[in-house]
């Protein structure tokens, strides 16, 4: 299986990859004609969450930063859109702002943590702490005094009635098809964009920093600038995911910030493997379908299963499900070849 983050990743992708991308694009465009609405809705949310997975796998796989806090930007993106759209009545520039505002926050937070040269483990724990603080803060905003403009934050219950995107040419709301195309399109664009980013100077330098930050510094690279830029970029992708979530569900809630959500993001990347971009996306789909198949289970049981999966994968499949399958597959093949 192609190792996208392999040492030779700086080589342009093979034609087979481009074919794969083209096939995805065609499938995406054609799909609404062949599928029913409920499947489209299900797939749309998978696209939205795939974006969140991509932001995490970029930050962790490429840059080597384990952040438990991508859900912070996911939540901020959703809430920013909800608050701005409900306050102003327009939807397009709130959508853009919903991506930019979390990036600004990421810039400030990232600046203090990255320029503060805080070590990797502490950084991870601090992102977890910030997630905890955000969840607690939002949950505590139930009272009527917690209002931004004329939108109540509503604490536990979240903000309902978030408007869908209004098309600029005729002011009508984006249809279910439209949301499907938007989410799928964005996911595809970001996936291709991140893969091609590996070919740029920035991408190659980031990978170099991940591989050996000290050597990069000893050659004159200020690793902090690159890490901060990557951190802000990842936050932007997560925020996009959050804004799309709000558009998809017309609803935002504190659950967007919570530990279960944060855990799911980490699990997607662990299951899918850190060495590819597509692995976590596939894992997102698998995990979502598995959850739907389980039906309505209590939140306690969801948390229980998430914990078990995390434990299982760290102990047994540290490289991730897909890379391990790939590795096992290779071993079988070579055994068969050896027998001849």
């Amino acid at each position, binding site marked *: 299986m192609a190792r996208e983050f392999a*040492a*030779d990743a*700086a080589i342009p992708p093979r034609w087979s990859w481009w074919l794969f991308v083209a096939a995805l694009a065609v499938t995406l465009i054609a799909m609404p004609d062949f599928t029913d609405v409920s499947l489209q809705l299900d797939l749309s949310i998978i696209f939205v969450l795939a974006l969140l997975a991509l932001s995490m796998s970029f930050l962790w796989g490429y840059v080597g930063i384990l952040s438990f806090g991508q859900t912070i930007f996911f939540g901020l993106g959703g809430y920013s859109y909800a608050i701005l759209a409900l306050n102003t009545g327009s939807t397009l520039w709130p959508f853009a702002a919903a991506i930019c505002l979390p990036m600004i926050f990421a810039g400030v937070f990232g600046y203090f943590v990255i320029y503060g040269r805080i070590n990797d483990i502490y950084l991870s724990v601090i992102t977890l702490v910030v997630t905890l603080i955000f969840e607690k803060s939002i949950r505590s905003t139930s009272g009527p005094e917690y209002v931004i403009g004329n939108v109540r934050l509503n604490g536990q219950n979240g903000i309902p009635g978030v408007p869908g995107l209004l098309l600029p040419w005729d002011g009508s709301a984006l249809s279910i098809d439209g949301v499907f195309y938007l989410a799928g399109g964005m996911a595809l664009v970001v996936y291709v964009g991140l893969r091609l980013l590996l070919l740029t*100077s920035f991408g*190659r*330098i980031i*990978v*170099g920093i991940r*591989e*050996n930050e*000290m*050597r*990069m*510094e*000893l*050659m*004159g*690279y*200020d*690793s902090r600038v690159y890490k901060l830029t990557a951190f802000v970029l990842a936050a932007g992708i997560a925020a996009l995911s959050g804004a799309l979530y709000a558009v998809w569900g017309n609803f935002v809630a504190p659950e967007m910030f919570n530990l279960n959500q944060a855990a799911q993001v980490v699990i997607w990347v662990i299951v899918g493997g850190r060495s590819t971009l597509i692995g976590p996306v596939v894992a997102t789909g698998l995990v979502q379908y598995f959850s739907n198949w389980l039906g309505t289970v209590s939140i306690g049981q969801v948390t229980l299963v998430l914990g078990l999966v995390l434990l299982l994968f760290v102990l047994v499949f540290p490289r991730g499900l897909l890379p391990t399958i790939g590795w096992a597959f290779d071993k079988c093949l070579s055994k068969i070849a050896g027998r001849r």
Partner: protein
Amino acid sequence: MDVAAPILETQNLEKRFGGVAAVDGVNFALRRGELRCLIGPNGAGKSTFFKMLTGQVRPTHGRILLEGDDIVGVEPYAIARRGVGIKNQVPIVMNGLTVRENLWLAARARRKGAAIAAAIDAIIERLDIGAILGRFVGELAHGQRQWIEIAMVIVCEPNIVLLDEPAAGMSDEETARTAALVLDLNKSATIVVVEHDMQFIRQIARTVTVFHQGRILVEDTFQNVVANPVVRDVYVGRQGVT
């Protein structure tokens, strides 16, 4: 710019780890264009000394003057940009990337566009590493990994090159090549070499500084140092100095 002033100088440089002084009050001066050797038993403080010069380790006391400016507390990347390059005792390279990619990253540090490819071609030629370009650095032998690290340092065109045991783990033939390279490099850069291999030092030596227990014991020409009885005592039990 005062040509006679040292390009690199330390004043009372000290590094303590808990109660142990790895470097204990070192006054060191390096003239522009010099080729200096640093010798001394293991644990004498040479590698720690080097790491303070690059900013990898922060001194406990003292000053380091690079072209007259105190660089204590300056970030390693800023010191590197001022022209200090180091090949470490244990190679610090990108093991998970290919040789080619490592070289590209070294070349990209100060160049853009076509100059990068030109620099890479030049170093491949100079160090004769064309055969291993596609190999992962982590899979190379120790001697080869050192050679790659030296290549990366040279690509960055530093004014001061610090080489920490460049001949370690090398065959006689590789050692001779390294010595030749060091002499060639000296035409364009000031060099300090830490080494144990006396054959290597003999091939390149001019002034030799002897470190012992974190301090400078003796600083003299190679012949005088080798004949010095105090130095011999310090080396008793170690490789014979012939």
